[in-house]
């Protein structure tokens, strides 16, 4: 159990460092799909996302503080949602067997 907690804690720390610190240095160039869409002439068919005005949209966009907020919120939400979903899936097994 202790060993498990150490691994989990270290993994979460690395994850937060990636989302909050390393993400600051991420390239802001378009990704492969967006780049090809621009070159091939279908980029303009993209519609604005309904949440485009949210402070978390595009991971904070140009705002450094919103980028940090996005990293923390995203990591905690995916971690929490993942824990919830996988706990439910697992307990489903226990009830199916019992």
């Amino acid at each position, binding site marked *: 159990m202790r*060993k*498990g907690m150490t*691994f*989990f804690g*270290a*993994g*979460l720390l*690395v*994850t*937060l460092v*990636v*989302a909050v610190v*390393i*993400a600051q*240095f*991420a*390239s*802001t*160039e*378009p*990704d*492969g*799909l967006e*780049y*090809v*869409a621009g*070159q*091939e*002439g*279908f980029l303009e*068919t*993209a*519609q604005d*996302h309904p*949440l*485009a005005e*949210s402070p*978390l*949209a*595009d*991971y904070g966009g140009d705002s450094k503080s919103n980028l940090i907020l*996005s*990293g923390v919120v*995203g*990591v*905690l*939400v*995916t*971690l*929490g*949602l*993942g*824990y919830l*979903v*996988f*706990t439910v*899936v*697992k307990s*489903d*097994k226990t009830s199916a067997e019992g």
Partner: protein
Amino acid sequence: MHIPDGFIGPGISAAAGLTAIGGFAVALRKARDYLTDRLVPMAALVAAFVFAAQMVNFPVLPGMSGHLLGGVLAAVLVGPWAGCIVMSLVLIVEALLFADGGLSALGLNIVNMSLIGAVVGYLVYRVLFRLGGSRPTAVPVLAGLAAMISVPLAATGFVLEFGLGGTVESISIGSVFWAILGTHVLIGIGEGLITFVVVGAVMRSRPDLVYGSPTFGGTRSEELVS
């Protein structure tokens, strides 16, 4: 690789949505067979890590970047079915909270990055692992290699969807295919390197937590490739 709303018409987007729901339901059933108390926090952690790593775009060409997809990484660490769930959850959170990937395109993105990226990606990993002699020491390299291959595979999913349901008639699908393939082969190199490093780090510290390794300490589902 997140498809925004508008690239693909409603018919193919809806069909992909149904495929995604069906795939997710199968993944829930299959993951149930091997999920243990130990695997639950690991799968949640992998979801958070894939989200974090997807935030970090790395430069690929002048004017173009790429980021980790993470499907093979997740599948090698927690198995293809839990990996499929991990990827789907990450894509749902990205579309609903971060406006990354369109809402009507969510099914398309789940088909490409979760069903192809994680499940087909794991199939590629298993084949390479068998061919490579099934040695634990080969796990990080072969996970990296499968990850490298999975990116152009997932991108080909987009080309197929674009060919069937693209909203601009005048575009040559062949031209889109070669452009998407070329750029995503390059992005795949980054995918392979990151997957190699991360799987290698987990193999060194906790080889019993790596589903795709013979050192794995838990139960497995029926393998896609024995």
